């Protein structure tokens, strides 16, 4: 584990009285977009609150780019956290909210104004910034919280369900913003229930269930470790599906082959995708089949989530 460029959880547990928050978490989060996935109560928010010092670990050690969460003076110069709490200091406008945050960071008046305007622009909130937050819609409140988290230009951004309440257009713009920030080298840690969007934006995922980390890493790598228990499903559209099916049945690693209703393709389940793709290449080179498309059917977050957490998870 390289401490100073990673967010590190070293054997971290958190109990709320007798209730388990997270248990024995061992994680090292690199730069890029990391998504925490799990049902309600799985420990996503607890992990985020632990790395930002809002709650303290019962045991274990946490370091965010080498800084302990109980050192707010250093930590929050480089970290911004958009929490799930939909509440704000009373009577503030959107601009005041950001401006006050920046004054708390010790910025002067001119810098605070400029940084506030920049952040508002990034989340498309320039126009309503002069209005009181109390008059904002759910989506606008979500965006102003996001602006508050990024206004001091942090290196680590922690976002708890940041897409909640956003309409499809705002959601798409926000995802583009996350990507742009990740390209700038930021650590972005997101929790989300919206699995197909997690798939679109994540460089790596951390799957949580009942306070335990059940899997972590790039989603394809996580999926790869599950092939014995959950064979990979691949959709193949080709000219000779019958011939292909016959060749595949002769392979030990192929568990199941299903013909499409239109007899133009197959759904293949295999425990060894490498051998399967090798055979497919060989058949194409031999001219036995002509492929129109090949695509894995269950190597996305949703499938991995279903396999690992499944019915027990529920909430996501």
């Amino acid at each position: 584990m390289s401490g100073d460029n990673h967010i590190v959880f070293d054997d971290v547990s958190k109990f709320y009285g007798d209730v388990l928050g997270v248990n024995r978490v061992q994680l090292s989060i690199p730069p890029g977009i990391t998504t925490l996935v799990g049902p309600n109560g799985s420990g996503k928010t607890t992990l985020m609150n632990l790395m930002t010092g809002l709650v303290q670990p019962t045991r274990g050690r946490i370091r965010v780019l080498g800084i302990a969460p109980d050192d707010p003076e250093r930590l929050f110069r480089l970290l911004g956290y958009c929490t799930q709490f939909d509440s704000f200091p009373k009577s503030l406008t959107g601009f005041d909210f950001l401006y006050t945050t920046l004054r708390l960071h010790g910025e002067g008046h001119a810098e605070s104004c400029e940084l506030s305007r920049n952040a508002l622009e990034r989340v498309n909130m320039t126009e309503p910034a002069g209005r009181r937050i109390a008059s904002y819609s759910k989506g606008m409140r979500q965006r102003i919280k996001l602006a508050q988290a990024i206004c001091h230009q942090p290196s680590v951004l922690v976002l708890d369900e940041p897409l909640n309440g956003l309409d499809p257009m705002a959601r798409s713009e926000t995802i583009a913003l996350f990507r742009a920030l990740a390209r700038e080298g930021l650590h972005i840690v997101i929790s989300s229930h919206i699995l197909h969007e997690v798939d679109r934006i994540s460089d790596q995922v951390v799957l949580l269930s009942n306070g335990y980390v059940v899997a972590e890493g790039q989603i394809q790598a996580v999926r790869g470790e599950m092939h014995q228990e959950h064979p990979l499903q691949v959709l193949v559209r080709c000219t000779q599906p019958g011939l292909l099916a016959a060749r595949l049945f002769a392979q030990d690693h192929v568990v199941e082959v299903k013909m499409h209703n239109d007899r133009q393709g197959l759904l293949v389940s295999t425990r060894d995708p490498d051998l399967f793709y090798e055979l497919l290449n060989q058949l194409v080179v031999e001219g036995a089949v002509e492929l129109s498309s090949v695509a894995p059917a269950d190597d996305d977050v949703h499938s991995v989530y279903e396999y690992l957490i499944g019915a027990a998870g529920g909430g996501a």
Partner: protein
Amino acid sequence: MKAKLPWGLWWTQILAILRLEMKKNFARKRSIPVYLLAASPILLYAAHAFAHARGWNQCSGQQDLTEFAGVFQLYVLRLAIFFSAVAVFMNLFRGEVLEKSLHYYFLAPVRREILVAGKYLSGLLMTCVVFSLSTTLSYLLLMGHLRMTAARALAGPALADLPAYLGATLLACAGYGAVFLILGLLFRNPIVPTVAVLIWESILVFLPAILKKVSVIFYLESLCPVKAPFRGGGALFAVSADPTPAYLAVPGLLMLTIALLVLASLRIRRMEIRYGTE
């Protein structure tokens, strides 16, 4: 070698906290009872002067001054400032927990000790402004009234007592402020600790000398320039037959205040954001 402490940054942060908190302290609905409590003595002395001017009552100047001391010690210090400190200081953190907005402070690069200092100063400024005005205006009304009576010669020397009344007012805000700041951090329900402190401050006459020092009113009574006319049942409110001199009372109260603020800082360092279970 010790690293240089960032005093400039801390001061900027305290000013930023004050800017945010002062707006809230002065403008929120919760402050209306504070304004009413502070306005009561002004209205009382305005009514007293008005009644005298219309010839509805007769009073001697010396009696007025003694009664002012009684009103100040029994009402202003023990009730008005006491309950205003409950309303203002107890809600500095507790109010933010109820409104689920405390995390914004915890997510800023601000030491929690600085947060305690900033919030305490905001409450102190608010209560000091309101009750200094109240004490000054009610005393000036009394002086104006005295000038219209046969005891007008008393008005000049009595005016010299105003700084002592003001000093006691400011120290009462500071002392009770610190008491209710820490209690607001320790208790979810404000009623139980408030009643407990009220009882403690009211039974000092029965307590041994060492325990009297762990109270705010013990020091304040010593600072009042005129002895209050506690008689009959009111004698229970006389804290001590032998008051502490001012040169000990002021540092004593300031030390008590600082000790309570240190405790508040230690408490808030361990505080977690768990709005659902707070």
